[in-house]
């Protein structure tokens, strides 16, 4: 199991380096793409209709989403470097995958994240300040999963795939799925990475969701690296092809293309709402930063690989498209940049002002119906603690 703290492996062998470059080079011929890295629209008759409503205003909104979450991510990363967070999990490079998937969700849908889904959290209306507590050690997740319809971050790799499947089974049992449900039907989306696909819980989630026709979209962000281990350490076949063995559809989408990700995820969610789930989406993307701030990618991958992926940057291609196709003015980009700086400043101020949790927090809400033994332990410790106060 990959360590969350991310201690790095020793120097990679040349074979490992070559394998890494090969695995990460291209998405292959089945890759769904609507916006090329050069910012040009790509024709795809199957998925284009799913983003027919994305006019210039909506494209601007997607661009804004991605810039803001990237700016918040960079600020949080900097806060860790300055000792204000004990760790941060960067999303750099995965903005299109997360905004595309997040904006495909309808309010009634439920999302189960892993721990890097800051962009999806943004789409569910969770302010970036609410993510900080996990990484500053003040909470294990501060948002209300029911109100936001965004479950808490799951750190144990792959666990959430079964939890999401169970939730989706409940949606079906509640009669929220089926032919007539259309726009009002419900679906669940579950996020995990390429490393997680080796976990038993992910396989079991595929099996269970298939045999119970559960309306769950398995959204795998293949960012090519599970800490130091390249994709070839997890699989022989492209990940999206695994779905076939479980009896459902799998699609590989360009995870750096926000339009294609939006289209494919909307399609997949609608398949689920109408009773044709589950669906596997492999979003082919790249982790441009470290696994976490405790990781050092220079020990296991080449800098050239990152340079290659910078050419496929998810934000830049939308900017180019907006300028070339829609004649977007510099003023708009400057406004978004200024807004992102304001967000970063707010995030920083919030972080610095976060109060240290009180010792009572240790004992809080372990049980719904309190345990007399735990209550006694709490009272004893708090009495001891208060004996130091003047």
């Amino acid at each position, binding site marked *: 199991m990959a360590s969350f703290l991310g201690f790095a492996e020793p120097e990679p062998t040349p074979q490992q380096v070559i394998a890494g470059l090969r695995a990460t080079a291209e998405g292959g011929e089945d890759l769904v793409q609507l916006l090329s890295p050069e910012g040009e629209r790509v024709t795809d008759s199957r998925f284009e209709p799913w983003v027919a409503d994305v006019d210039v205003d909506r494209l601007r909104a997607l661009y804004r989403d991605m810039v803001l979450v990237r700016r918040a991510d960079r600020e949080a990363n900097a806060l860790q470097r300055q000792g204000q967070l004990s760790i941060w999990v960067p999303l750099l490079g995965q903005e299109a995958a997360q905004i595309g998937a997040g904006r495909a969700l309808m309010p009634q849908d439920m999302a189960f994240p892993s721990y890097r889904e800051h962009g999806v959290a943004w789409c569910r209306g969770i302010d970036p300040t609410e993510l900080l507590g996990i990484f500053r050690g003040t909470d294990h*997740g501060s948002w209300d999963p029911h109100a936001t319809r965004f479950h808490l971050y799951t750190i144990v790799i792959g666990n959430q795939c079964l939890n999401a499947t*169970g*939730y989706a089974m409940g949606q079906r049992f509640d009669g929220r799925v089926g032919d007539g449900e259309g726009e009002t039907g419900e679906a669940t989306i579950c996020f995990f990475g390429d490393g997680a696909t080796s976990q038993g*819980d992910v396989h*079991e989630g595929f099996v269970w969701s298939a045999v119970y026709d559960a309306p769950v979209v398995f959204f795998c962000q293949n960012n090519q690296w599970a800490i130091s281990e390249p994709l070839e350490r997890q699989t022989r076949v492209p990940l999206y092809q695994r779905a076939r063995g479980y009896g459902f559809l799998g699609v590989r989408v360009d995870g750096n293309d926000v339009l294609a990700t939006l289209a494919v995820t909307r399609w997949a969610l609608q398949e689920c709402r109408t009773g044709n789930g589950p669906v596997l989406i492999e979003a082919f993307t790249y982790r441009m930063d470290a696994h976490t701030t405790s990781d050092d990618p220079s020990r296991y991958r080449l800098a050239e690989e990152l340079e290659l992926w910078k050419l496929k940057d998810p934000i830049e291609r939308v900017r180019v498209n907006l300028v070339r196709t829609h004649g977007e003015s510099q003023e708009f980009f400057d406004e978004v940049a200024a807004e992102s700086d304001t967000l970063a400043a707010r995030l920083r101020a919030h972080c610095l002002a976060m109060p240290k949790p009180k010792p009572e927090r240790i004992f809080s809400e372990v049980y719904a119906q309190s345990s007399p033994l735990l209550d006694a332990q709490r009272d004893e410790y708090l009495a001891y603690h208060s004996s130091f106060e003047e």
Partner: protein
Amino acid sequence: MGASTITMAKALNNGLRAAMERDPKVLVMGEDVGKLGGVFRITDGLAKDFGEQRVLDTPLAESGIIGTAVGLAIRGYRPVCEIQFDGFVFPGYDQIVSQLAKLHYRSQGRVLMPVVVRIPFGGGIGAVEHHSESPEALFAHVPGLKVVACGNPVDAYWMIQQAIECDDPVIFFEPKRRYWEKAELDESDRTVVLPLFRARVLRSGSHATLAGYGPVIRTCLDAAAAASSSHGQSPIELEVIDLRTLSPLDLAPVYDSVRRTGRLVVVSEAPSEVSVAAEVAAKVQQHCFYSLEAPVLRVTGFDTPYPPSGCEQDYIPDLDRILEAVDRSLAW
């Protein structure tokens, strides 16, 4: 409704049925729990009466059973999971420890986990490996879980319903070799109902105290009866306490008893090292230090994997081992 003679298996079945009738959100899920009624028939007839959407014959994957139950609980259901045998729970242990036990705490009370995990436990049925284990300490040690064990049919009937009504996750241990033992149960008689997380004094005595849970409760009662009717010497009166709840422990009745008897023997089928019995012993010495006339003794299984079943009559604490320990305590 009057009293009827009923097995523990049927009492559990009736308890599950009552809970399912009361609350449409209660689901039963596990391997072979539907048409077959479970390998011990505890869920017999439920699929027929409640349908396959409320009694789920699941794929054969214990992590899947617990992991999807967690998701169903988030959705508002109250799943009752059956783990077919004690030794098969471990693929699901990750979901139990990492998600089931922690989600209420992680969410600071926003997410309830009203999930019951039923586990037939203990030996004595001549089974092959992995079918006779007593892993309760591995669950009692996990904050966020509640752990109980029923010891007779009347408790089984009420405790399973109370566990299902509990908003916390409950690991529910059923003594499989006692499934077919009978008792009088009057389902309308609520005077016998104790809160779920309470120990129960089953027999009063003044010379020494026996405390146990699950399958050894019958053995403790038999030992107490034998001690009381000892021929040729003065009878020994043993107080017998069924702990019933292993997390949180309810030791107030044990403290009361030990303060009168001065002697305690803790009986359990599990290995003794770092066990529930060890926790009872530690707490009793802390709370009853000046009342104790002898050290707290333990009669347990041995610190080995469960042996081949040909040896289990020596492994499982029996009447003689319990009384030998009582003698040692009295002679201290």
